[in-house]
């Protein structure tokens, strides 16, 4: 399960950014590397598998239309056929 840390990421920053990060990690009792890494991984996770999706007016309207579909809607034939294939035996 555990991988070796064989890769390197180096960063160039301005003195003020470094000072800010140093102050932040002192407050959190951690290191700059761990701090950046943990926050970076969290942000990456959120970019790859987002939990919140933002929609504009048009998107919101479509969502509302979907939510208001009747329960006795006629399902799409092609979709039904695709999903019926290899239906496991009960």
């Amino acid at each position, binding site marked *: *399960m555990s*991988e070796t840390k064989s890769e390197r990421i180096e960063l160039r920053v301005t003195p003020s950014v470094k000072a800010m990060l140093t102050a932040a990690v002192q407050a959190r009792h951690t290191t700059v590397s761990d701090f950046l890494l943990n926050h970076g991984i969290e942000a990456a*996770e959120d970019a*790859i*598998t*987002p*939990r*919140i*999706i*933002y*929609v*504009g*007016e*048009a*998107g*919101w309207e*479509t*969502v509302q239309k*979907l*939510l208001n*579909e*009747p*329960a*006795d*809607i*006629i*399902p*799409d034939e*092609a*979709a*039904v*056929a*695709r*999903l*019926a*294939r*290899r*239906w*496991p*035996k009960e």
Partner: protein
Amino acid sequence: MPGTETPLTISPLTAADDLSSFDCGGPARNTWFKSRAMQNQQSNDTRTYLGYLGRSLAGFYAVSTGSILRRTLSGALRRNAPDPVSTILLAQLAVSIAFQGQGRSCELIRHVMQQTLKTADLEGFRLFTVYPAWTAYYAKLNLTPVEAAPQLMMAMSLQTLRATLAAAQEAAAAKRGTSP
């Protein structure tokens, strides 16, 4: 040796599963699967399910819960906006290169749809969402494209999902009844 009409056996990812040789041809999905899926399983961020055919790992999907929020043109959240819409999110889906072109992804999607129906009533989910969506593919399953930022999402209401699955089950039973 299972035949091409043998259904996948689909179950949750556990520490005992060996993911190391999985290859779906997509580097990003391969990496996520091998390096993040198990950690997310433990933290409950996403739930990953594996589809096996015999002893071969044919594919996987990962699902989470999410919220859809409305945003104005300026990018700010709208004031007095109605509650966010709770949704089941299909976040990852991949089929191993060796099993592509057989309609295996539809089996994985059927499974996530069935799981969605099981939990939806209890937890108040009203939508099934794929994000980010691969439009051409999900259109074939009759999901509706929804403009979202930064990528398009595709969605199906729970009532349509229920009707579609019920019809599919009926079709499968009818086919089984007529074949020897």
